């Protein structure tokens, strides 16, 4: 069907007859490539961990601390303003909109708990994940992709240095370790914004706000959010690096891989978030 339309001419009888089969074939091909990607990314993560452990077993540090700190600074510390600002504005909006609705029933004192739970458990990690995918995922893919097309990665491999351990492990670990910290900052910024709104529009004093937040938040909410963040961090790092190291076709290839990396990471983060919620609610109600 697509082929006939692309041609721009009238659809031939043959094209119409084959249309359903073409559609199914197209869906099949796409599904196949998604499954290949999923398998490759898990294999990639397993190899990275394997190569890193191999090195540690030989009594050597897997990568230099300086390399880890450089990536931590880039991915973590430099992301703080963006994460805090976006979360602050979103917390502000959320408190304002929910507050106006709840006010009609005289239950605006539910706003602090609502924002606190939503952010610590769900929106903090999710928003941070999406922001890091765009900010850091894209940068990791473009950087490693450029190294790949200029044969730098192959040169590293040819020297006998494991490129997964040397290039991927410090990046993945930096995101894995820093992601929970960023998601805590995101939640804190949103709760702070909602405290300002609650005080300004709904006459909830800061001390009362604090009480309401502490009453409604459970340890379980915080643990869920932190666990998710660790998982998102590792996924963002792995997918972004995988896309970078599998770049083919020069500068255009790097561009395509970067776009594909951001799209894949955001989709995966949202998908895993849903999966995590389902599993968590079913098994730990």
């Amino acid at each position, binding site marked *: 069907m697509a082929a006939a339309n692309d041609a721009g001419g009238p659809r031939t009888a043959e094209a119409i007859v084959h249309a359903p089969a073409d559609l199914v074939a197209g869906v099949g091909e796409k599904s196949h490539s998604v499954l290949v990607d999923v398998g490759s990314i898990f294999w990639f993560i397993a190899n990275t961990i394997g190569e890193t452990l*191999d090195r540690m077993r030989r009594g050597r540090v897997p990568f*230099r601390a300086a390399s880890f700190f450089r990536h931590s600074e880039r991915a973590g510390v430099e992301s703080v303003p963006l994460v805090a600002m976006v979360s602050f504005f979103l917390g502000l909006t959320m408190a304002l909109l929910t507050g106006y609705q709840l006010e009609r029933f005289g239950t605006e004192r539910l706003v602090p708990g609502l924002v606190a739970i939503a952010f610590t458990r769900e929106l903090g990690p999710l928003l941070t994940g999406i922001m890091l995918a765009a900010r850091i995922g894209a940068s990791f893919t473009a950087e490693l992709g450029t190294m790949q097309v200029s044969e730098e990665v*192959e040169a*590293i*491999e040819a020297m*006998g240095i494991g490129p997964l351990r*040397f290039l991927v492990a410090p990046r993945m670990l930096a995101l894995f370790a820093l992601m929970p910290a960023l998601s805590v900052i995101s939640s804190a910024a949103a709760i702070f914004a909602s405290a300002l709104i609650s005080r300004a529009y709904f006459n909830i004093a800061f001390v009362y706000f604090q009480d309401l937040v502490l009453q409604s938040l459970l340890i379980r909410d915080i643990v869920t959010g932190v666990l998710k963040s660790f998982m998102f961090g590792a996924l963002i790092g792995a997918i972004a690096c995988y896309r970078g190291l599998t770049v083919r076709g020069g500068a255009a290839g790097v561009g395509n891989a970067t776009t594909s990396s951001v799209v894949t990471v955001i989709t995966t983060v949202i998908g895993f978030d849903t999966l995590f919620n389902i599993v968590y609610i079913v098994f730990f109600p």
Partner: protein
Amino acid sequence: MTQPINHVVELRDVSLAYPGKKVLDGVSLAVHPLDRLVIMGQSGSGKSTILRLILGILQPSAGEIFFKQFEISRLSRTKLQQVRARIGMVYQYSALLSSRNVGDNVALPLEELTRKTTGEIDQLVDEKLALVGMSDSKNLMPSELSGGMRKRVSLARALVMDPELILFDEPSAGLDPVISSVIDELIISLTQHSKVTSIIVTHEMDSAFRIGTRMAMLYHGKVIAQATPGEFKKIDHPVVQQFLSGSTKGPILEGTKDAVTTK
């Protein structure tokens, strides 16, 4: 899988095929200690592929590749990395890490693969940079260097682990004739000085005859001629003769798209 004797590198009946394309078709080659084997052939004839097969970056579809007593395609990941550390590679476009300066590029294999102290590494880096005449550029970034300078740094990086074999992929490509001769002479003097075997892939005739102690010609995935430089010129094979003369008339372009453009 018998152990080859007295060969640094040996390829036995090596083939490499991608779907719809045969790159190498039963290539057999042996490189003796201290040889400088020059592999010649047209662009895209699979010359650089041979270097990647020796390093284990590509896997052959058939045949065996030996470095010393090790059969490359059968080594474990750890063993392969240890073998690669004994081989130096100089890439066509140098492949220096653009985020590290010259000194750090040369130091990289030492930092990652040895237990040497920073002082020892510094000393070795200085020594190798002096060998290639790049002592003054230790703190420059690769983007600040010319093509010839990058190639020298790449050579210093390949030498820094004191390898037993160095592979050169088009060492004089993209350089002017003078710098190209300088790099050729550097390759000759350094391989003699460090007592190292080398394989050089090139299609530049002047360079090939200057550097090589043995020469091999690759055509349609096969080695069609192998000889010393003196004997090579006398080989009465139409492909070899056309390649040496650079003529457009002959078997090389027959039936190819390039032949159409030359009419």
